[in-house]
């Protein structure tokens, strides 16, 4: 079991309110990702759930029990830190055994669980090494091993992959997802990387300045962003947001169109522009179009994503046509208009 409910949870550091009162429900077995720009309060929120920070107000319930005043260890949660936070003076075996030793579990059970965890995480050959002798990916696996053996009701991940290089990050991402499928335990995962959020989550919680901007599945967020912030944050490259006369035509303050929902032609189309930089990824090409005459905000940049087969080069004139059914409209408050 691992359902977590936050009621009116808020946090102040001195006079600064980092998290205004918020409510959130996380269901048993869900993979929930907290995502947002740095400083948005996502890590603080995770630490409030873990019990590493005290709440200024509100209540945290785990499996229906109020744990607001319960110490971190007694909440039945495991946490994986960005820095791995392994005990550098202990071997891998002792690191993994540590939470079980603290809980007073007998040696035989400890050994069995360590062996099982080490096997599933490919750590069997490294059990007698110290963390300093391991690579970043191996350290991260040890941290996960230490989290697993406690059999927690939920796992908390605080940006666990940001210290790894790009290739390793993709591998570890898959391993964590596999782990979730296998254990079926609630996982809360904090990241600033929207790609991680989109690929891993059952449910994404988008945060900005401590406020929940939207909660939903990855595709909900992609197709129906509730406001301009979510629209700009989810999706890569970013959604083009256009204001002014062009938006007024659609009875909106702002209209948005994702780079992949724009048709490009060299002869005719709705908007005209000049190609700046073209980024060729092979399968796709991102072209950055200037001088469209559209009010796209700072930088006069309109991004389009086209299939890799179209040849365009710097200085070419292109015509852009948005796919009308994929157009997003926002009102003066930045909220979505259906």
């Amino acid at each position: 079991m691992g359902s977590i409910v936050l009621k009116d949870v808020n946090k102040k550091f001195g006079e600064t309110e980092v998290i205004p009162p918020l409510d959130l429900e996380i269901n048993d077995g869900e993979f929930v990702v907290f995502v947002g720009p740095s400083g948005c309060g996502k890590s603080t929120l995770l630490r409030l759930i873990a019990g590493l920070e005290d709440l200024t107000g509100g209540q945290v319930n785990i499996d229906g029990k109020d744990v607001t005043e319960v110490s971190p260890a007694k909440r039945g949660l495991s946490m994986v830190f960005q820095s791995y936070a392994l005990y550098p003076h202990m071997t891998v075996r002792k690191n993994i055994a540590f939470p079980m030793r603290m809980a007073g579990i007998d040696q035989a059970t400890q050994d069995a669980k360590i062996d099982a965890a080490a096997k599933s995480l490919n750590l069997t050959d490294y059990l007698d090494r110290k963390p300093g002798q391991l690579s970043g990916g191996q350290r991260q696996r040890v941290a996960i091993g230490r989290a697993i053996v406690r059999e927690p009701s939920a796992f908390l991940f605080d940006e666990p992959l940001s210290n790894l290089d790009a290739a390793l990050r993709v591998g570890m991402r898959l391993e964590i997802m596999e782990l979730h499928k296998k254990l079926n335990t609630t996982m809360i995962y904090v990241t600033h990387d929207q790609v991680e959020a989109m690929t891993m989550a059952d449910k994404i919680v988008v945060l900005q300045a401590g406020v929940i901007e939207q909660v939903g599945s990855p595709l909900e967020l992609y197709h129906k962003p509730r406001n301009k912030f979510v629209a700009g944050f989810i999706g890569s490259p970013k959604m083009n947001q256009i204001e002014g006369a062009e938006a007024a035509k659609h009875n909106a303050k702002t209209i948005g169109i994702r780079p992949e929902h724009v048709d490009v032609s060299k002869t005719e189309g709705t908007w005209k522009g000049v190609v700046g930089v073209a980024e060729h990824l092979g399968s796709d090409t991102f072209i950055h179009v200037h001088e469209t005459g559209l009010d796209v905000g700072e930088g006069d940049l309109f991004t389009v994503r086209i299939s890799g087969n179209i040849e365009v080069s710097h200085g070419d004139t292109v015509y852009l046509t948005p796919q009308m059914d994929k157009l997003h409209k926002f009102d003066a408050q930045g909220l979505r208009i259906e």
Partner: protein
Amino acid sequence: MAIVAQTSRFSRIAWPTLAWVVGLIFFFPIFYMVLTSFKTDADAVNPDMLFSFTPTLENYANMTDNYDYWRFATNSVIVSVFATLFALVVGVPCAYAMAFNPSRATKDVLMWMLSTKMLPAAAVLYPMTFLTKNVFGLFDTHFLVILVLCLINLPIVVWMLFTYFKDIPKDIIEAGKMDGLTTWGEVKEILIPLAWGGIVSTALLTFIFCWNEAYWTVRLTTIDAATLSKLIEGNRAPEGLFFGRLSAVSTAAVGPIIVLGWFCQKQLVSGVAFGAVK
């Protein structure tokens, strides 16, 4: 090719030479003290016998015959060991609290602690002697010397431990919290093992400071709790200085600490370079 900075011949020779010269200047008084301890009192003050004299062990023989060197030495060991231990027992939790649960006042408290070291000891000489002698009746007791040595070294102890503890990533302590450690558990399982080098360095330095302390140990003791500092002081006889005898006593007093420092120099230096796995 040639752009790569090369150590010039000058600096390869000049710097080590300078270091040796400075080292020898510092070492010379100690060397001369040891040398003088093997001269008779008469030879010690004779300018013609600076380096050429007939060595004698008379001064050392006198020392154990006349003043019971071992009692003073035992006292030195007792007060230094216990003062160091108490300073650590108080200092470790104190530095732990300030390193891992800092408040807005932490910096001020640290500064205030250090500022107590700026107080001239002479300023409190009268209240200290009067109160300990006439009010508390603690004068010339081990307890008093231990207490005073512990207190005067505590600011340094807390400062040193604080800097070592600060190097331990907070995440590791928090991981410990998640894994079920109590506050004492954090200190025992994580803090002490990880900062062990730093703690040992702090202990060694404190021990050396306690051993060498002379101002209070001389003034707050007479016989029962007198340390080696007092023994040296006591060899200033009214009829003049007996340099040979004094040098022997001094050599015997600083000898143990020099030997200790020699064996622990690696620890003293490496304690500073301590760092945990990031």
